[in-house]
């Protein structure tokens, strides 16, 4: 078991190191093989660990930080939650690495790319497997750094570098929350070990738990792009599509949810914290769905969709249903990665065109991509009997179960958001794949799509199958015991025993809502109406559309409230204080010394009158001193 865990962690990290040091001298094929091989090796090691798994296990690999009473050893903790997440991460990332080989085949920076990608996987696995908060924070920061480096991968274009910086700075705000929480934990619990902290819930006052919970929520808001720290994720689409798929859909953005789930035994004791988490999740879900409704860039649609779906996961955590959230997290990883990879195929095929209103007819030209993308879309919309349907429905059921006005309102909100989700998903599908061949681009009439390498197409198939069949992972109670429920039972006492009739009723409502969304999308974007929508898209956006297109103008709001005062203050400190006060003081001192020197120099002017005065003054001084002494 220890070996398996070590391999899980070390393979990606060592591969990254190898790329960093030797990548330039090794042949390209070898570099790519090494990168993919490391992740698949981790997957195999995870399968081995799962095979011999028979209960939570803590393994210490060595000591790391020690100071007085503070210890943070390199300890890994394998329990059902981290094991299932590890499986998902290694599998999805493995498929995405294969895809990335094809996507980046013309790019000269492949060495740096695969190094960062492997480093990212290593850091993410460290985050998931960490037993103490400091090691988790190490993984947290590692994924943050890799995200920054990969978003700004094509840094020669300034907007890419700016997007990377924006992501880093905004997530930093959340990281402050986590760092404060770690310090508070050490101060009050005398330990930073997660397993021990989770057991101390009964020994401390509720106010402390609420404080810790809210700080953790802040960290999760930053990393998982929840309201109000979600502004970085749409701009992060400036990175290559495999990066968007891996980091900003499947893995890193779920780290915040994972953190909350990990520490749920402690922070779940405070009703205020769970309510805050649920409200954040609900609001974010609505925000993401409304914004995705009007976007033109295919990757931005998917980015807002990610924000919305993670809002669902947070809502599930806030409702206390950890199993439902984990189920949705794993499902979402499958179909969102699938959608992003499919979008990457579309973009590459159309010579890097990303505007959905300029696409069309691709269901005939890219059949494999079309069917896989469609599979992902039905999962995202939550059409009945797909994996996405079961996972989303389990969250809705958990929220309904909580009862009370707050959760009732959140249920209604989540249901409305499900309608919007179906709507924007099929809008995207109809616009991209429907109709006839794409509008001719300016200056190049009737371009035929460029051929896609097969390595970009066939990783989509396993993901599609996993997405559609993922419902088998956790069938509802009336269809057999959910595998995941059984697996995660030690963590989650969410087996409230929901009544069969209620469950069927809820599922029926969810199904109706999803189909309604599909119908609405068809009525607006299907067949003939599609052409009309394309013409309308030619005009600039106005009113509500413009508001939603700009993401509820949050960027503008932050610029007004935070950025402009900060820039003003920085300017003030620079010009007034640094240059005016500090530099000028030194300058003035120097000038003063110069003037003194010149003043003294003008004493030897050759004029007798000056010399006579000096003589007289000197005599006065000496004689005066004698008189003073004699007194």
């Amino acid at each position, binding site marked *: 078991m220890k070996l398996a865990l070590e391999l899980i962690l070390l393979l990606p990290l060592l591969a990254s190191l190898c790329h960093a040091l030797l990548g330039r001298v090794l042949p390209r094929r070898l570099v790519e093989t090494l990168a993919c091989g490391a992740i698949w090796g981790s997957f195999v090691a995870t399968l081995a660990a799962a095979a011999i798994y028979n209960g939570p296990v803590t393994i210490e690999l060595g000591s790391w930080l020690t100071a007085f009473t503070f210890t943070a050893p390199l300890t890994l903790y394998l329990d059902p939650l981290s094991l299932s997440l590890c499986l998902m991460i290694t599998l999805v990332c493995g498929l995405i690495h294969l895809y990335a080989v094809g996507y980046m085949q013309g790019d000269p920076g492949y060495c740096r790319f695969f190094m960062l990608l492997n480093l990212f996987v290593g850091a993410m696995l460290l985050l998931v497997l960490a037993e103490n908060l400091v090691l988790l924070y190490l993984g947290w920061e590692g994924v943050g750094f890799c995200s920054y480096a990969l978003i700004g991968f094509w840094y020669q274009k300034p907007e890419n570098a700016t997007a990377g910086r924006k992501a880093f700075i905004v997530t930093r705000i959340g990281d402050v929350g986590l760092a404060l929480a770690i310090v508070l934990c050490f101060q009050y619990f005398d330990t930073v070990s997660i397993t021990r902290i989770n057991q101390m819930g009964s020994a401390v006052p509720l106010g402390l738990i609420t404080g810790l919970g809210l700080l953790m929520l802040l960290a999760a808001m930053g990393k998982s792009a929840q309201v109000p720290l979600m502004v970085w994720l749409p701009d992060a689409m400036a990175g290559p599509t495999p990066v968007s798929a891996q980091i900003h859909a499947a893995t890193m953005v779920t780290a915040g949810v994972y953190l909350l789930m990990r520490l749920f035994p402690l922070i779940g004791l405070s009703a205020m914290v769970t309510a805050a988490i649920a409200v954040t999740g609900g609001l974010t879900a609505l925000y993401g769905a409304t914004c995705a409704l009007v976007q033109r860039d295919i990757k931005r649609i998917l980015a807002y969709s990610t924000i919305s779906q993670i809002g669902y996961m947070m809502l599930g955590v806030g409702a206390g249903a950890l199993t439902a959230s984990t189920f949705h997290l794993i499902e979402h990883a499958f179909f969102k990665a699938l959608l992003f990879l499919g979008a990457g195929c579309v973009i590459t095929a159309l010579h890097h065109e990303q505007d959905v209103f300029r696409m069309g007819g691709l269901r005939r030209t890219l059949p494999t991509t079309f069917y896989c993308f469609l599979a992902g879309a039905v999962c995202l919309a939550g059409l009945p009997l797909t994996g996405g349907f079961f996972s989303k429905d389990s969250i809705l059921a958990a929220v309904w179960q909580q009862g009370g006005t707050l959760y009732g309102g959140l249920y209604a909100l989540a249901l409305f958001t499900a309608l919007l989700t179906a709507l924007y998903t099929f809008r995207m599908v109809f616009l991209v794949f429907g109709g006839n061949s794409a509008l001719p681009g300016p200056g190049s009439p009737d371009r035929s799509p460029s051929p896609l390498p097969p390595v970009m197409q066939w990783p989509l198939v396993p993901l599609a199958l996993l997405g559609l069949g993922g419902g088998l992972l956790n069938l509802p109670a009336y269809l057999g015991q959910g595998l995941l429920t059984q697996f995660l039972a030690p963590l989650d006492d969410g087996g409230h025993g929901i009544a069969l009739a209620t469950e069927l009723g809820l599922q029926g409502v969810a199904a109706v809502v999803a189909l309604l969304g599909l119908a609405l999308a068809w009525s607006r974007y299907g067949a003939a109406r599609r052409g009309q929508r394309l013409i309308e898209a030619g005009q600039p956006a106005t009113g509500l559309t413009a508001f939603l297109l700009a993401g509820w103008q949050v960027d503008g709001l932050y610029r007004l409230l935070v950025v402009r005062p900060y820039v003003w203050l920085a300017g003030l400190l620079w010009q007034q204080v640094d240059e005016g006060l500090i530099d000028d003081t030194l300058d003035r001192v120097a000038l003063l010394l110069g003037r003194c020197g010149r003043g003294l120099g003008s004493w030897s002017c050759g004029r007798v009158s000056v010399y006579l*005065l000096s003589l*007289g*003054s000197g005599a006065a001084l000496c*004689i005066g001193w004698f*008189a003073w002494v*004699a*007194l």
Partner: protein
Amino acid sequence: METTLFYILAAVTVIATILAITEKHPVHAIVNLVTSFFALAAIFFLLAAPLIAMFEIIIYAGAVMVLFLFVVMILDLGHPERAARPGLFHWLPAVLLIEVILFSLIVLVSVRVGPPAAAPMITVQDFALTLFRQYGVAIEIVSMQLLFAVVGALYLGRRRKA
């Protein structure tokens, strides 16, 4: 009586000197100065130094001051009585400094003076003997100095062929 005379002569000296200092016209200043020297000579006489008094009048007031007058006349300085008095910038530092020095000197003078020795009056013979016996070398040197002065004055004063 001699005491009173001393004080009167002292007053004359000081007043004449002050007038000499504050005159714009150099000739007026020099004449006031001569008055001052005459009073000073009388004081010397009262202080049992008749030879010095005579030398003061003959050489100082008679020769040196006359020389001053000669030079002032030669220079032909125009109409000095219409010239400006020295301004504030000139006499204010002077006044300040001499006040300091005067005060210090007064303090020094009044603090330490030894007791008077029983002093016999000095006669001219005493003076002559002291001068030529103990300070003979000084006399030689001073005479040579006078010679140098004459030579130098001659050199500086010669007219060049224009």
